[in-house]
C-alpha cells in the first residue's frame, strides 16, 4: 500500500502527481471465499478490514451491487455521538466513538473526524427532563454529555437565538463535546483501501440475487449477476435492502425500509461551529468543511425503496431550520437526496447470528448508523470470525423480538438521528 504522508504529497507535487496508485484493486471474483460480506457500505467494508487486520482472515470478498459507499454511507449527514440512553446502545456507540478518535491514523486515511460537539436543543420541560436523564445516564456510564443553560449554549454556538420571543424558545441544551462529524466517502474508501491492502477482494457492480444452502441448511455461497460464488460464511450488511437479501435465505427480519432525506445549501463562509439537533421541532444542521449547510430531514411514513422521499418532509424541516436560525432564510438549497433506511420496531440495531448456519446479519441501523460504523464493523468482524457476538454487541441479537428484551431507543429519541 502506498503510504500517505506530507512527504508523499510533496514528492507527487514535484513529479506532476503521476505516481498515485489506485487505492484498492478490482479483481475477478474467486470461486470461493472464507467469508463473503454482502454490502459495500462502511459497515461491510469495515468488517472486512477488521476480519483481515484483527482475525487474520483475508480470503474475504465484499460484494456491492453498485459502487462502494453509494448506499446510506454516502448519503448521510454524518452526525457522530454516543450519548444514547440504554447500556446496550452506549456500549456500541461509545466503542465506535473511541475508534473514530484514532481512525485516520489507523487507516492512514483522513476520515476528517471532527469532534466539534453535538448539541441537542431543549424547548420544553419535557425535553429538559428527558435530556437531563440522558446526561445523568451517560455520565454514570463514563460517557461525556453535559447540560447547558441557554446562555452557555449560545456561547458555544453563537448563531442560536435564545431570546424569549423566538418561535421555538430554547430553555437549555445537552452537549456532547466529543460528538461531531466525519467525511462519509472517506470512511468507505479508507476501509476499502486498508482491506484491499490485506488481500480482501472488493467487487463492485456485483448484486447478490440468491443465497445457496446445503442439505444441512448451512450456507454454501451466493448467486450473483456474475455467477455463483462459494462462501464458508456470509455476513449480510445491506442496510435498506436487508429484508430482500435475508429473504433469499428464508429468514424474516423485523425491518421496515423507508426513505430518509437530506439536503445541502450553497457553500457559505464558516458560520456554524458545531452540530445542532432539535428533536422537538425536527431539524438538525451542521456545516461541512466545503461550507455547505448539511440538513437532515425525516423519514416518509410508508415503506419504499424509491430513494426519493416526499417534498413535504423536507419543507417541514426547512420550516424548522428557518424558525430556529432566521439568518438562513435566504440561503439557497443546492441538492437533495434520499437513502433507504432499515428501521427496527425498537429503533435499535440488530447484529448477531441467524437461524441459518454460518449466516450473520448486521442491520437495523436505520436513521443513525453512520456514527456506529467503526464500532459495528469491528464487532461484526468478531461475530463472523468467532461465531458468537462480542460482549459489547451481545444485546443486539435478532431474537430479542421473540424474548422481549427490546432496547427501546425509539421512545428515548423519537427522531431521526
Amino acid at each position, binding site marked *: 500500500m502506498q503510504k500517505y504522508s506530507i512527504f508523499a504529497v510533496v514528492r507527487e507535487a514535484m513529479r506532476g502527481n503521476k505516481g498515485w496508485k489506485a487505492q484498492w484493486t478490482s479483481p475477478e471474483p474467486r470461486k470461493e471465499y472464507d467469508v463473503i460480506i454482502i454490502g459495500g457500505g462502511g459497515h461491510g467494508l469495515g468488517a472486512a478490514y477488521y476480519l483481515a487486520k484483527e482475525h487474520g482472515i483475508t480470503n474475504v470478498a465484499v460484494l456491492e451491487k453498485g459502487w462502494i459507499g453509494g448506499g446510506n454511507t454516502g448519503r448521510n449527514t454524518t452526525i457522530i455521538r454516543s450519548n444514547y440512553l440504554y447500556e446496550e446502545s452506549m456500549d456500541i456507540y461509545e466503542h465506535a466513538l473511541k475508534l473514530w478518535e484514532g481512525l485516520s491514523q489507523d487507516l492512514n486515511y483522513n476520515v476528517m473526524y471532527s469532534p466539534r460537539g453535538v448539541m441537542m436543543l431543549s424547548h420544553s420541560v419535557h425535553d429538559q427532563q428527558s435530556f437531563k436523564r440522558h446526561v445523568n445516564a451517560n455520565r454514570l456510564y463514563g460517557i461525556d454529555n453535559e447540560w447547558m443553560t441557554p446562555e452557555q449554549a449560545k456561547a458555544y454556538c453563537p448563531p442560536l437565538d435564545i431570546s424569549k420571543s423566538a418561535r421555538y424558545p430554547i430553555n437549555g441544551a445537552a452537549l456532547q463535546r466529543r460528538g461531531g462529524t466525519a467525511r462519509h466517502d472517506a470512511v468507505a474508501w479508507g476501509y476499502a483501501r486498508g482491506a484491499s491492502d490485506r488481500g480482501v477482494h472488493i467487487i463492485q457492480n456485483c448484486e447478490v440475487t440468491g443465497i445457496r444452502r446445503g442439505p444441512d441448511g448451512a450456507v454454501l455461497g451466493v448467486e450473483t449477476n456474475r455467477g455463483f460464488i462459494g462462501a464458508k460464511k456470509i455476513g449480510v450488511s445491506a442496510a435498506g435492502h436487508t429484508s430482500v437479501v435475508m429473504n433469499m435465505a428464508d429468514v424474516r*427480519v423485523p425491518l421496515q*425500509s423507508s426513505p430518509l432525506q437530506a439536503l445541502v445549501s450553497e457553500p457559505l463562509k464558516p458560520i456554524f461551529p458545531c452540530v445542532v439537533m432539535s428533536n422537538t421541532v425536527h431539524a438538525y444542521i451542521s456545516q461541512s468543511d466545503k461550507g455547505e449547510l448539511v440538513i437532515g430531514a425525516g423519514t416518509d411514513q410508508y415503506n419504499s425503496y424509491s430513494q426519493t422521499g416526499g417534498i*413535504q418532509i423536507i419543507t417541514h424541516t426547512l420550516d424548522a431550520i428557518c424558525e430556529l436560525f432566521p439568518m438562513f432564510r435566504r440561503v439557497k438549497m443546492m441538492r437533495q437526496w434520499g437513502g433507504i433506511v432499515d428501521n427496527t420496531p425498537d429503533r435499535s440495531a440488530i447484529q448477531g447470528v441467524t437461524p441459518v448456519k454460518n449466516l450473520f446479519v448486521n442491520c437495523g441501523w436505520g436513521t443513525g448508523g453512520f456514527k456506529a460504523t467503526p464500532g459495528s464493523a469491528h464487532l461484526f468482524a468478531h461475530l463472523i470470525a468467532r461465531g458468537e457476538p462480542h460482549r459489547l454487541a451481545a444485546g443486539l441479537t435478532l431474537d430479542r423480538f421473540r424474548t422481549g428484551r427490546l432496547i427501546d431507543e425509539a421512545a428515548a429519541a423519537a427522531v431521526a438521528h
Partner: protein
Amino acid sequence: MLLIHCPYCGEDRSELEFRGAGDAHIARPTNMADISDAEFEAFFFLRQNPKGIIYERWRHIHGCGRFFNAVRDTVSDRFIKTYKAGEPKPDINAAPATDAKVETYEALEGDAR
C-alpha cells in the same frame, strides 16, 4: 408526495390528508394468551417489507377518517389499487418496476404524453 385515492370519498387527494397505518391483512390472533413467543413475534414484529408489491393500510385522517387498504409498488411508489377495509386481498400480478424503469420520465410517464 403521494396522490392517494380514497375508496370511500371516491377522490384522489394529497398524501397530507392521510396517515399510513402499516401492513394490511394481518389478523390479530383470537387466542393471544395461548400463542407462543415465536407466533407473537411473527404477528407483532415481522413484516414482509417487500421490494415490489405491498399491501398496506391507510387512514384518510383529514378526510372521511376511515381506514382502507391499498396495493402499491414500493419501487416506483405507484398505487395499483385502493379498496375498502374488509374487502378480500386482491390478486395482483403486476411486476414491480425495476430500478431502471423509475429513473426516467419516459419509462414511467411515456403514455401520458
